[in-house]
């Protein structure tokens, strides 16, 4: 579904992405793992076309995403730090997104808005929200249009345990519907029961892309966190 082919991106002298090639298919849940500053977010943003790659190409459903924009209607994106217009209320923001994506989005999925209790504070302005509530808004917006692909950048960072659990259940539910879920996280333990594929990045380079079974077999560890640790030790 998403194929990245030898993409490179430089920010000044820093190589944020160095020859990254990745393939993600439908129905998978791909975990994007790597230390801080390894290029995970840059990679995600280049899939969304928010970062324009220096060379290499990305295809979405077989079409090059460069100069294309319609493919984004099939993506729900939850940014790491959700930044929204300060003087808009939650309600206005949701209405605006519905208005903008309305036709192309298909059916509307407001489940998360309800389960996060956002429907009770629709009148609150974005600038008054706490970091966690902002994350809840980001998550609700990502799932709102029932997209085929979910791209979640550190989805549970800043969420309280209850909300994190709600979000995880929702991800499992959507994955079961055969959607592609691309997820980055530092908390490896919460990825254990979700993930089918693991992409490991370091210093902008792709170190490996493996299915979780293969990774478990290679390292002899059942837990993802232990398997990654074992891999890192081995590669040193």
């Amino acid at each position, binding site marked *: 579904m998403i194929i990245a082919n030898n993409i490179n991106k430089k920010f000044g002298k820093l190589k944020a992405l160095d020859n990254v090639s990745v393939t993600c298919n439908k129905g998978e849940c791909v975990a994007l793992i790597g230390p801080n500053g390894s290029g995970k977010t840059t990679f995600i943003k280049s899939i969304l076309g928010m970062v324009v790659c220096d060379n290499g190409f990305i295809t979405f459903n077989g079409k090059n995403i460069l100069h294309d924009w319609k493919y984004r209607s099939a993506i729900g994106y939850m940014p790491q730090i959700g930044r929204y217009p*300060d003087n808009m209320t939650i309600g206005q923001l949701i209405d605006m997104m519905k208005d903008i994506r309305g036709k192309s989005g298909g059916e509307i999925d407001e489940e998360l808005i309800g389960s996060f209790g956002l429907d009770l504070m629709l009148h609150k302005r974005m600038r008054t929200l706490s970091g966690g509530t902002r994350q809840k808004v980001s998550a609700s917006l990502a799932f709102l249009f029932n997209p085929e692909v979910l791209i979640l950048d550190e989805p549970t960072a800043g969420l309280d345990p209850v909300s994190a659990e709600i979000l995880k259940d929702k991800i499992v539910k959507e994955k079961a519907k055969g959607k592609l879920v691309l997820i980055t996280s530092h908390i490896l333990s919460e990825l254990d029961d979700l993930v089918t594929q693991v992409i490991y990045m370091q210093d902008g380079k792709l170190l490996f892309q493996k299915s979780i079974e293969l990774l478990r077999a290679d390292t002899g560890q059942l837990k993802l966190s232990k398997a990654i640790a074992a891999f890192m030790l081995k590669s040193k």
Partner: protein
Amino acid sequence: MKKILKYVVIDILRNKIVLAYTIFLLILSFSIFNLEDSSSKGILSLLNIVLIVVPMVSVLFASIYVYNSAEFLELLLSQPLRRKTIWLSVFSGLLISMVISFVAGVGIPVLLYEFSVTGFTLIISGILLTIIFIALAMLVAVKVRDKARGIGAVILLWLYFSILFDGLVLFLLFQFEDYPLEKPMVAITALNPIDLSRIMVLLKMDISAMMGYTGAVFRNFFGNATGMCISLLVLLLWIILPIWISVRMFNRKDV
């Protein structure tokens, strides 16, 4: 396009600055027309103020607005929208609100007191200046990432066009006073939209008869329809070029 435009215009209108600007222009125009004994003299005073105030407010407001809507732009960029559409919607939103504000603030009083070709020229050139300086502000905003530097650049740009440029031209004139510079001067004014607008309006007034030989050359060029068309075209170019370059840069910009 229409949907984003709607949100941009609503956002700008919620910001009271545009309303304050309109009221300021209204008070200014009415007081000038009431102070001067003849309305054509009023037009002249108004022209001088409009040429300073309109570019400054347009360029500052537009650049600050674009910098402040960084979050909004970021949100839109992850949605199924063409980048060009997003950028041009912001431009059109600024353009519509600032032009309406100018027409209400200066256009209405001018039409009430001085319903003439001069009045019309003043309104048209004010509108064009508004759009030109919004376009320039958007170019700076897409080029310079840092807000403080961007606003600084925009202020310098305004200083250059309204003060420094004239100084440079005067310097040039004195350095080369032995040569006939009247005709090159016509071309040089094309490099500054503010000067171009000033000349366009001044030549529609009676006082242009007293501007000496250069004035005569200018009158010869700008006085006829061809010259007028060329200067309008140059002003339009001052809009199209910056906005076109900024669209191209925005298409490659990383967020």
